[in-house]
């Protein structure tokens, strides 16, 4: 037992922080605001620099093209980047690429991995459907076998970044007669394929997402991940890859820090109010409780152990705390706390208010908290199903 972070991890954190301070310029932030998260010229440059650092694959096995570093480095990367809300890789890197590396054919590896690494290829994830959200396995988008490939018909929602991606990583029912969890394959679909339609969806927190429609879209056989009809385990495996830093403490703590800084500058009388200080003390306690679950989960994953209950706990804790911190911070700041990010007077670009509106996402995204709680009960505590 030793709860200290060894020096090499702390040195890595410092390195990441230096990198952030170098790149997080007002110009980059302005570009991000303007393009609503889509890649612009500055963020492309930033991504290039990030890729040069090699951090995106640092925890992969050497034989898969990585550095074979301890996954706790990934944890530290995520925590440090998330504090400043700097992008550090998306599902293309954390989910698609490892899946191709592990399951893909040699041809697929050659066709996609280099392009992913140099940033030319980006993937949107096509899992959710209007009637298959939490119950993902009931998806209906179907592929019919045709000569040399598959003809795909169906509809996906929450295909985030679809309009800015070159490909869609599409969960498709390829065997309609198999049981629910079987008969699903992962297809790699070019976004400019004939028959693909992308429709933007505005969400309440400003995040743009997309609905994607597939009308007789042709996908060649070589773009089907093997094993055919065995997509469910690929999907599950891919989700597991994200879990070392699945619920950062730092970006929750950032809301706290932003509030305190605002009060120091604009409402010192409130910061002097014993009741406000007590509420802040309560938030500090909650942040540490969450931090405990987040690190506990990361350590387990870093060891290669599998304890789904720990990931579920970290995920529930972080997603629910996001709501509590932000709603309280808005109350403390009063009407100033309600200013949105499109108002120049808003606190730190409306960060807290925006986090409030976005807070439901993680409560259902990546498996609803209801499902997570049942996972804790059955798989961590051994309760009867």
């Amino acid at each position: 037992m030793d709860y200290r972070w060894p020096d090499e991890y702390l040195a890595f954190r410092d390195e990441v922080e230096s990198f952030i301070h170098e790149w997080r310029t007002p110009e980059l932030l302005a570009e991000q605001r303007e393009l609503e998260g889509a890649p612009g010229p500055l963020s492309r440059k930033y991504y290039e620099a990030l890729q040069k650092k090699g951090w995106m694959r640092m925890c992969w096995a050497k034989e898969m093209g990585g550095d074979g570093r301890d996954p706790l480095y990934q944890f530290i990367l995520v925590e440090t980047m998330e504090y400043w809300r700097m992008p550090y890789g998306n599902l293309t890197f954390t989910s698609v690429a490892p899946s191709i590396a592990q399951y893909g054919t040699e041809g697929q590896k050659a066709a996609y991995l280099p392009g992913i690494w140099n940033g030319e290829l980006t993937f949107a994830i096509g899992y959710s459907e209007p009637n298959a959200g939490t119950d993902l396995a009931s998806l209906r988008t179907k592929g019919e076998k045709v000569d040399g490939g598959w003809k795909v018909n169906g509809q996906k929602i929450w295909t985030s970044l679809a309009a800015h991606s070159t490909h869609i990583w599409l969960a498709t029912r390829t065997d309609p007669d198999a049981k629910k969890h079987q008969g699903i394959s992962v297809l790699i679909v070019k976004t400019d394929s004939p028959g693909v339609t992308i429709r933007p969806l505005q969400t309440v927190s400003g995040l743009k997402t997309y609905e994607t429609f597939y009308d007789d879209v042709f996908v060649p056989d070589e773009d089907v991940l093997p094993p055919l009809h065995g997509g469910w385990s690929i999907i599950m495996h891919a989700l597991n890859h994200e879990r070392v830093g699945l619920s950062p403490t730092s970006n929750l703590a950032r809301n706290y820090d932003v509030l305190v800084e605002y009060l120091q500058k604009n409402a010192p009388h409130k910061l002097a109010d014993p009741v406000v200080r007590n509420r802040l003390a309560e938030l500090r306690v909650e942040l540490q409780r969450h931090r405990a679950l987040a690190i506990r989960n990361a350590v387990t994953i870093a060891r290669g152990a599998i304890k789904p209950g720990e990931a579920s706990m970290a995920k529930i804790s972080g997603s629910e705390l996001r709501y509590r911190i932000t709603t309280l911070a808005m109350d403390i700041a009063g009407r100033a706390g309600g200013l949105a990010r499109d108002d120049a007077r808003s606190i730190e670009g409306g960060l807290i208010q925006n986090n409030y509106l976005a807070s439901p996402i993680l409560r259902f995204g990546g498996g609803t908290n209801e499902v997570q709680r049942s996972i804790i009960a059955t798989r961590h505590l051994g309760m009867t199903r």
Partner: protein
Amino acid sequence: MNPDLSETQSLLQTTMRQYLETEIPFDRVREHEEKRVADAELWKAMAGQGWLGIPLPETVGGGGAGLVEAGIFVHELARRAVVVPGAEVMTAAVMLARHADGDESEILAALVDGNAIVVPAHLEAADDLEKVDAAVDAEGRLAGAKHYVDYADFATHHLVTARGTEGLGLYLVERSAPGVSTEALRSTGRTPQAIVTYRDVPARRVAGEAAVGQLIDLARTFASTQILACMEVSLEQTVAYTNVRVQFGQPLAAFQAVQHHAANMCMHVESSRFLVYELLDALEDGRASSDDAALVKASLSRAVPEVTMLGHQLHGGQGLIEENDLYFFTIRGKDRALAWGSAEECLAILARDVETPPRWL
């Protein structure tokens, strides 16, 4: 002890609800919301229905009804999330009517037919409801700034709290008067709000210091009423959605965890409804104190994020997309939770008197 609406009150509720649901599609609300402008056409139409004068004396063409009826008006508007200053104008109108001498009958009549639109302007700089630096000099000229003024530009007049030669009071100011300038704000609720600056603006004193507290209590109570409406609709939409949305082979509504979330939402809604109407009923004849108004606002301001976030929890991704109608009530609800005293500010008011035994009958 009868917490239910009378027949006349029910009729008003039903009439308004049917009218708004029929006449105002949510997409029309989206249009006004996006532009941050009030729905002037709806306002005009409501004047035609005779609703704008509900609590005003019959002598000026009003409905001669009370605060409960005014509350129903505010409640129904909030249920449809329409972009009109219902709560604001009711607050100002009741204050003007209460302190009416001969001078006021003209503006009261104009309020009834929708030609005058009066909104309160109270809050200054920080979120401290007790701070009033705006001042009216001996010549009756107002100088000062008011923040987060709802519907400042749609209004024809502002009812401004300020310090004059006779002390703190309410002053009536014309929006179009030279020296009144506004700067738009973009808030969570997406309704029009602004910072208003008054530079040497003619202002007529209409009520004294006691009225300032009354104005806050009333505005706070109507804000609570709006919150109630947001919670109600959020719950209704959630029940409807979970009854039809099938996951894992059964409607979401049949899952125990989903039922329990909905039950928690429901307890907030039902207790809030009782508290809000009890307060309106008691404010009508002076039985309610400022503490009562603060207590109800504290309770509802805390409840509404809980309820609307549970609504989102049960809607999943569907509920976050702006094409779905759920979000109106999430954003309006939290906005009103911050208006006229957040839960924190209202609790601070209650904290002044904790020694009195709480009411239990």
